[in-house]
């Protein structure tokens, strides 16, 4: 079924991701070529696609068929590409700022407990405020340009990065810390040689949560400012308002693809950087 190619690609990336996570877990005995790795996944996706088609055939006004979605995608590649790039840019700029800011604040909080006590309650207050409610206010404040989208995306990424990085920086091996302290290593040296490399498993666990959230943040921000600017989220709202279901679902599929791409890339980088760590720490 050529029609399900987008979704099949998604399945393949997801399978790679799972294999990657296992490999990073150290004692992976199954290789990626092992049929047990991909056949069950492929079957699940095939069954899901089949069920989708059955529903779509009997209820054409509820969901479009996969072939209709695919046909729409290949008929307007330039339009989808432009919108994909806009959302990608929002995600990359927003996530990068949120990641850096979250990590930087975690470093300051880990080094100076007083900062944590002072700032953490405010951070929590901001984070429990529904992002969907903040987005329209930001649009009013910053207009329909890219800025409110960057801010919303950065905000959703910020918290998981902060919390995970902080946990990682605090989790430095106490015995190694004792060794460095008896050597009278400076704070900077302890950070450079122990806390920073040691917190990476937590940072990657945080990224694993943050990157999919970044796509959510960008899409939500676009919903609010729909119609003014391009982007896959805007495309979803405008086309849904016109009951143009193939466009809606093609945009949703591309948003999904974007998330899968980011997570797969992350898994690859993680394997390079964190080969020494066995398994992810428990994300808090």
């Amino acid at each position: 079924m050529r029609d399900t190619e987008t979704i099949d690609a998604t399945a393949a990336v997801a399978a790679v991701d799972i294999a990657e996570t296992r490999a990073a877990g150290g004692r992976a005995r199954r290789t990626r070529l092992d049929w047990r790795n991909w056949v069950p996944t492929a079957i699940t996706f095939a069954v899901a696609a089949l069920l989708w088609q059955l529903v779509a055939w009997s209820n054409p006004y509820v969901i479009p068929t996969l072939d209709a979605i695919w046909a729409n995608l290949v008929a307007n590649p330039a339009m989808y590409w432009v919108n994909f790039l806009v959302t990608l840019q929002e995600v990359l700029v927003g996530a990068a700022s949120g990641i850096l800011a979250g990590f930087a604040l975690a470093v300051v909080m880990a080094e100076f407990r007083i900062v944590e006590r002072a700032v953490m309650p405010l951070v929590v207050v901001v984070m429990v405020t529904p992002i969907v409610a903040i987005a329209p206010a930001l649009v009013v404040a910053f207009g329909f340009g890219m800025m409110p989208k960057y801010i919303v995306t950065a905000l959703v990424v910020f918290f998981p990065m902060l919390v995970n990085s902080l946990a990682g920086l605090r989790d430095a091996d106490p015995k190694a810390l004792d060794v460095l302290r008896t050597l009278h290593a400076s704070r900077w040296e302890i950070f450079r040689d122990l806390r920073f490399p040691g917190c990476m498993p937590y940072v990657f666990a945080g990224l694993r949560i943050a990157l999919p959230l970044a796509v959510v943040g960008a899409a939500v921000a676009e919903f609010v400012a729909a119609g003014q600017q391009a982007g896959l989220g805007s495309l979803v709202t405008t086309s849904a308002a016109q009951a143009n279901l193939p466009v809606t679902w093609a945009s949703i599929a591309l948003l999904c693809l974007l998330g899968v791409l980011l997570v797969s890339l992350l898994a690859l980088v993680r394997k390079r950087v964190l080969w020494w760590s066995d398994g992810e720490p428990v994300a808090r």
Partner: protein
Amino acid sequence: MTGTAFIAPDGGVRVEHVSKSFGPPDARVTVLDDVSLTIGMGEFVSVIGPSGCGKSTLLKVVAGLIEADSGTVTIGGEPVAAAARDKAIGLVPQAPALLPWRTVLDNVRLPLQVNRRANAGRALRDPSELLTSFGLGHAMRKYPGQLSGGMQQRAAIARAFVFDPAIMLMDEPFSALDEMNRDQQRLGLLDFWQSNRKAVMFVTHSVPEAIMLSDRIVVMSAHPGRIATVIDVDLPRPRAEADYATDAFRDLEAVVRGELHRVMEAAHA
């Protein structure tokens, strides 16, 4: 055979009337009660005693990781903080605590890379030569996760020797190893130390280990942690595995076990 009035030459460790308690004011537990102890330059002193008697706490006070409530600790005549600034203290913790993202060689280099100011004018060792003499020449480029527990602990000991500290503090470095491995590591340390004499404070639970390695054995009692007695080990050096079988060794073993027994009895009385 006993006596606490050992006068340390200036290079060693001098612990005087150290007390330490933990916990909130209404439920304070005295862990160290008026502990005095000296370790001369090039002297190997073991600390042995029941679990929880404060051995690790004493070692951490000497390392400058815990501040005593009262009493003083000097190393080479200066306070602990000054000694740490001069990188005069080598610490071997109970677990190897190697950094898993560094090779064994880079782990041993670590002490040379921090607090570099203190590197000037001392006999720093070549990390790879040192590792070779610890029998880890073939494993230098490996990562700690690829090494056995015994090899990791040897690397941790090499890490403590590499910057040529005046004193060495070891907290049960072999306790996580199985008995055969432990014996091998202990003889390896004995060999190395006999040709690289340092002041060593060595916490252990093993009576034969304490006798084989030490010049003196400090027996501690618990609740509160006090020095019950100090036993001189007058076996000639250099020592080797064959010494385990000598009458003198067995006699000493009986003496140390007797003292430990008395300490335990007193605790239960």
